[in-house]
Every structure is written in C-alpha cells, then in structure tokens.
C-alpha cells in the first residue's frame, strides 16, 4: 500500500491507495503539521495495511514564503571571471569570495574565504560548480553558519545567476522543510512503517526525502501538483481543468494528455527558483477567506466558524445558503453577529464563482482549448460545482474522494526520480545522482557517442527508479539533456566530460 499525505496550509489529508484504488482517507485540521498530528492521522488510516512507501507533499515552504516568514539569507558567491557579479545578487546580503572554476571544472584560482555572512542561513554558489563541487564545499566549511545550501545541489544546469537565486531560496527554505521532514520521520518511526519516504516536487515528480532536503525550494508548487494529479487519477480525465479549493487559496491547473501542464521558474517577492512546476493559477480565495460587509476580504485569519473559528468566512457564507458543511449553527451565528445577511452570503459566493470561472477560462486558454471538463476537488467542491457549471462552458465533475485529492495525488504519482549522470573520463569516473549519489569507475579516456551516453543515462534512470520502488521501463524515460565535450590536452584527446539528465516521465497511476 502507498500512503499519500498532503500537508496544506490549514489541513492535512491522507489516503491509503493500493491495487484496488483508494482504501482509506482522512482529514485533520492543522496549521503547522507536527509529529503528533501525523501520528494520529497515520494511525487512523494505516491500521491493518502494509505500507510500501509514504509520499508527501507540503505547502509549508510556500506558506512561509507568502506569509513572509522565511529567514533572511547571506549569499556567498564565487563568480570567478566573467560578467559583473551583481547579475547573481539574489539575497539581501551578498558576499563575493575570490576563486575561479573554469568551464572544464578546473580550479583556475584557489578560493580565498574572507566573507563574513551577516545571517546564520547561508547559500554558497560558485560559477561552474556543477562541474566541480569542491570549491563550494571548501568555502562552506570555512564559514560559520547554521544552515548551508550549496549551488551544485540545486540542480546541474548551467546558469550561475539562476543557480545563485535558487540556492538562496533553498537555504531559506531549509529550516521549515527540515521541521516537516523530522515530523514525518518521527511519525513513521513511531508506527514502525519501515517504508521509504518520498517528497513530491512542484512538477509532480518524486524524489527521496534526503535529496528533497538539499533542494526544498523545489516543493513550492507541490500543492497544486498533488491535487491536480489526484483529480486526474480519480476522474480518469486526461484533458481537464483541475480546481482545488483549499482553506486559503484555490488552485486552478490545466492538464493536457493525462498530465498537468508545467512551466519553469517560480518567483515571489525576491524568492525565485528555476525549478519546473505545474502551471497553476492561484486565487487568493478559499474556505477560510474572511467575509466582511465589503465582501471577500482576500485574506485568511482563522478557520471558518463552521470549523471552530470566530469570524465569518467563505465556508460560512455557503452554509448560510444551505451547504451543510461542518458546524452550520456556528456559521449562522457568526454571520448574524457580524451583522451579515443571507443576501450578503449570496453576493460573496457570486463574487467567488465569477473569479473562479475567469481563472478556469484562462486555464482552458492555456491548454489551447483541449479541456472539456473541470474536475473539482477540496472540501467545498460539492457545494460549488453546480454554480461553476452555470458560468463556464465545461462539464464540472466532482469525483469520489475529491475532498482529499492532494493525498490521493501523492499516492497516485508515478515514481519518477530524476537522474543526473556526470562522466569525467580522463579521471576515469562517473557520478550518478538521484535519490542519493554514487560513483563508479569508467575506462580512462573513454569517449562516448551521443547515443551511448543517452543509453547510459536511460539505464541508470531505470535502475534508480527501481531502487526507489518504481517499475519504469526504458520506454518511460525522458532524456532532458545530454552535453559532452572532448578534453584535449597538448593536441591529444584525453577523453571527455559529459553530463546527461533524464527522468521517468512524471505520470499517473489511474485509479
């Protein structure tokens, strides 16, 4: 059995999924997911099942970004020679260290560490570090810091300014992600799950928790990734607009050909990464959005009154109109106490549906018109679907278990580890990094053809996927990048340096 866990900003959902589909589901309100909450949740659903793996998605990092609660970071840069280093300034404290790595990964100037980072959270990024991690490691060792993120761990691509920004984002995300990781570890240990834990990235691919901890900023869009994958899996739709109403936001994600559309990069108020993520539009509106006499306040203060809050929120407006979600009496009282009427409730629901249908229509546009269905999830889907259907030119479906679609999405996502192969044949070495990192030796001076290298990375990806509990075949592997160049010294080819990146195409186990 696979346990999927979706830790959103206000609720944590879980689902147990096996060969025969969804077996158990549960939902608990929780603003900061602790080990205790997870333990309770796991205990509720997992009794009697053998757990093969646990897959989690978390919006913890995203929530802290939006709430402006991430720590500041010092970015220590080793730019070597080239364009002005200011292009790579991405933190509020940027320090430049002397030292240089060239395009071949050779250290052409040794680092001189005289930086004094102002913050205990530090990012270290060197130009060309994916070709030689040693300089970043050396610099990090000489700095006094509580939390360190290294540029080469952000991902292998060549883009120093982008990597510097992404590394700073990773450093800032680490403490929040680490708390979550420890909570999951402690809960699974207590229940003797003895199963590996994977983390869903924002593009719906999956990595081991260790690798995810090196690059936690890659989880920023895992909320809409898990919910859209879950909604597709539950509905069986392949071209659709996926809508997930949460407590704080509503995610609207187009899907084409059986998978959500993705886009590169994430940016919010100085926090930016080059990671790919599902292409969702987020309305800043959800079940807990505060309702005042001016309408929807576009912010969350607390749970809706129906779930224990004090002031009236969007869920309460739906209850006043007869939705019957949670404690409806509390909703009525909160509305009355705030001097709001049924007409006010109708106004805010119409306001919400109007914004939602605009977002759905732009998602249809982004998917170039292919979706004919909107798949609706989240606890409020049932009471909003007919209103949405009146406004948009799509069928609206609410599949069974749509209230925990994010947790189902985690369990239904195919194991799709991303694998990076780096060959340095003059040194006779190959490094394979995916869930972990391992080295093996290759024939010194060996030169690969593009095809051979293609085959090597495909083979390694299949192997890594199997080790991670997946069952990918060669045909499921997508090669993202192959770069190779000859190393020529004194007019002699001494071998080659090659980088290849592949992944098992993120996919869905249809339920």
């Amino acid at each position, binding site marked *: 059995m696979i346990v999927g866990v979706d830790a959103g900003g206000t609720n944590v959902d879980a689902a147990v999924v096996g060969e025969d589909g969804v077996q158990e589901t549960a939902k608990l309100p929780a603003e900061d997911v602790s080990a205790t909450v997870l333990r309770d949740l796991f205990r509720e659903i997992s009794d009697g099942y053998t757990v093969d793996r646990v897959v989690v998605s978390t919006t913890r990092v995203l929530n802290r970004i939006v709430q402006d609660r991430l720590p500041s970071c010092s970015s220590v840069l080793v*730019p*070597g*020679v*080239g*364009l*002005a*280093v*200011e*292009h*790579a300034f991405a933190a509020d404290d940027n320090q430049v260290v002397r030292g*240089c790595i*060239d*395009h*071949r990964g050779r250290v*052409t*100037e040794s680092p001189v560490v005289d930086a004094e980072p102002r913050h205990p959270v530090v990012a270290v990024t060197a*130009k*060309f570090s994916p070709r030689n991690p040693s300089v970043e490691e050396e610099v990090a060792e000489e700095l006094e810091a509580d939390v360190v993120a290294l540029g080469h761990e952000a991902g292998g691509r*060549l*883009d*120093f*300014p*982008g990597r510097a920004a992404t590394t700073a984002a990773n450093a800032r995300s680490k403490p929040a992600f680490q708390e979550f990781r420890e909570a999951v570890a402690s809960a699974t240990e207590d229940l003797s799950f003895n199963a590996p834990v994977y983390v869903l990235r924002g593009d719906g691919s999956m990595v081991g928790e260790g690798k995810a901890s090196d690059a936690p900023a890659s989880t920023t869009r895992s909320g809409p990734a898990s919910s859209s994958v879950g909604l597709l899996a539950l509905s069986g739709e392949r071209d659709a607009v996926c809508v997930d109403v949460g407590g704080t936001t509503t995610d609207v994600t187009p899907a084409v050909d059986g998978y959500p559309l993705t886009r590169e990069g994430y940016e919010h108020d100085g926090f930016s990464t080059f990671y790919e993520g599902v292409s969702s539009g987020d309305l800043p509106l959800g079940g807990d959005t505060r309702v005042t006499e001016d309408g929807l306040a576009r912010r969350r203060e607390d749970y809706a009154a129906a779930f224990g809050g004090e002031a009236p929120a969007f869920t309460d407006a739906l209850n006043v109109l007869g939705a019957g979600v949670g404690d409806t009496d509390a909703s009525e009282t909160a509305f009355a106490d705030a001097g709001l009427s049924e007409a006010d409730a109708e106004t805010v629901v119409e306001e919400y549906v109007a914004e939602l249908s605009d977002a759905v229509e732009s998602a249809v546009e982004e998917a170039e018109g292919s979706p004919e269905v909107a798949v609706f999830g989240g606890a409020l889907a049932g009471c909003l679907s007919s209103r949405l259907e009146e406004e948009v030119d799509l069928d609206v479906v609410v599949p069974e278990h749509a209230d925990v679609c994010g947790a189902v999405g985690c369990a239904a996502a195919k194991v799709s580890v991303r694998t990076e192969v780096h060959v340095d044949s003059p040194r006779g070495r190959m490094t394979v990094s995916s869930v972990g990192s391992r080295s093996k030796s290759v024939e010194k001076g060996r030169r690969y053809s593009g095809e051979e290298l293609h085959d090597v990375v495909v083979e390694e990806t299949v192997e890594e996927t199997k080790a991670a509990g997946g069952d990918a075949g060669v045909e499921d592997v997508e090669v993202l990048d192959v*770069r190779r*160049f*000859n190393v*020529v010294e004194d*007019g*002699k*080819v001494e071998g080659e340096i090659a980088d290849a990146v592949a992944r098992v195409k993120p996919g869905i186990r249809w339920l």
Partner: protein
Amino acid sequence: MTLEIVYHDDYLLHEHSPTHPERRERLMYTMDQMQEEGVFDLDMVELVEPEAASEEALARVHTPDYLDRLKEMSMRGGGSLSGDTHVSEHTWHQSRLAAGGVVRGCRDVVEDSCESSFVMARPGGHHAFADRGHGFCFTNNTAVAVREIQESYDEVDRVLVWDWDAHHFDGTQEIFYSDPSVLTMSVHQTGRTLFPGTGYVDEVGEDEGEGFNVNVPVLPKTGDSGYLRVVEEVFEPVAREYDPDLVFVEAGQDCHFTDPITDLGVTADGYRRMMERAVDLAEDVSGGDLVASLCGGYGIEGGLPYTNLAVVASMAGLDTSNIREPAVYQPPQRQPDVDDVVAKVKSTHDEYWNL
C-alpha cells in the same frame, strides 16, 4: 542596447578530425560560458537560429564549378581542399548555414530588429575565394552576406569589413579587390611568419578598388597596445573618411596569447577595447549598425570563452570590468611596437586617405 546572437546547434556537426584546431569545442566551451553567465537570459540579448543561405546567394560570390565540387564532395561523405582543410558529410550544409547566419545577422541589423549582431558560426569563411577554399574555410560567409545585403537594401551602398583575425583575409581581399563599395581592412600577424603568407602593405586594391584594401601586418607577440594603436591611427581615420552604411567586424579571436597556432599577445581585455572602439565607430558612421562574426580562434580553453564573452558584453553594453582570463594564463611580457608598420601604411595610403 539590444544584441542578437546568431547560433545553431548544427554548427557543431562538422569536424575535420578530433584534434584538428578548428573543432566543435571552440563553440561548445563558449556556449557553456555564456549559458553559465546567464547571457541569454538578459533582456538586451536575444539568441536566434539562422537558416541556410540560398544557392543564389552563394552564387553571387562563388563560381558554379566550385560550389558543385564542394557540394558533391560533401554529399559523397568527404574529401579535402588542402592538407588541413577537410570536407566532411556535414560541410556543405554547415557552410551554407554559416553563410546564412551572417546573412541573418546583417539583415536584422539593417532592418533594425536589433541594434547589433554577433554571429557565432563555424566554419569560418575569410580564406575562401570565389573558386577555392583553404585555411579551414569553404564559403566566404562575409562576402555572401555583404553581396546579399547590397542587393536587397537600397540604403546599404558602402560596407566596411574590418578583419582582426590573426591570419590575413586572403579570400575576402581577393573577392572585393577591385570593388570600392566594400572597404576591406585587415590587421594580422605578418605573412612572413604565418599562414597564408600574404597581406602586405602594398596590396592596396586594383582598378576602381585601388586604395580600398588596407593591410596592417604586425610582428609576432604584438599585444593590446599595438592593436589599439593600429585601430586609432589607421582603421578609425580611414573608416570615418569612407563613411560606410554598415560596419562589419570579422572577429577572429586567434590573436589571443594562448592561441596554439598563432603567435600574438592580445588579451580578453584587448578584445573588449577593440570591440568598444568598433561600437563607437559604428555609432558615428553607420547609425550604430554593427555586425560581428566569429572567425578564427583556437585557444579553446584559455582564450575563446573569455574573448567571445568580452566581445559580446561590449556589444551589449554590459559591465566588462570582471572579464579577463583566469590567473593561470599570463600574457607575454615583451611586446614589439607597431611604429614601423603604422608609418609604412600611412605613407603607402597617403594618396588615398587623410592619415
């Protein structure tokens, strides 16, 4: 300032032999450097892909016999034009694509879809004649583009071709030798010590083109200060007097001190300064219309990534203060001056230009 970089992955296909100096790593290492610098993500830089030059465009410069021979040899899978200039199955396609890249760069600049353009193609072209090729060159990409532009645009009558490659541009010189509508100027390591052995001061053009070919052969080890003096005392005054509609730089990066097949002393900073002068010159004479095309350059590790970056950054108006070679590379200490050759050029061209 918007700069267009013209590049195609197919520029990596052709190979003479894996250890031949003109090999694909020349572009790969530079592309790696630019990608890692984030050059292509900058607002003022745009990367575009060219199309192959038409056979009609090639035929304006080359003889039908030569084009047929080159095409046939390449289709057959290989052959050679000279001891070090090998034809591969990719040569025909890639040469047309290189010429097409220069055409694209010139068109976009003349049509103002960008302010300047840098063409990063291979193979190079300046040793290609109308009816033959050697020196790693097959089609004269620059000549093909200049003819195409002159043919297509009424506003382009006069073109300045300024070739700073370490080798003399024998092919380009001959193609335009009697044509005053193209002013050709070259500074190069003297033919006494380097291929192709031509390029002396007294080769000044002929017939109507007399005076419109300027050669400045310099001594081995000549470095930044020598090159800058040639620019100031010869190229700039001649170019201003000529007043071209388009400035074209044949940007050979093989004057770099790490280049394995030449013997000069120019640094990445020297290239930066030369390109800045070319940018300023174009501002003054051609409304800023400037195209540069990568020519030679074989210092693939210590030279090209830095010289190309210097040139591109200067054209895009970026801060260039940190562009240099890493400290493991040191330029030669002793550099000859250019007094003699500058004096000789001035006296030889005295009857054509106010020097």
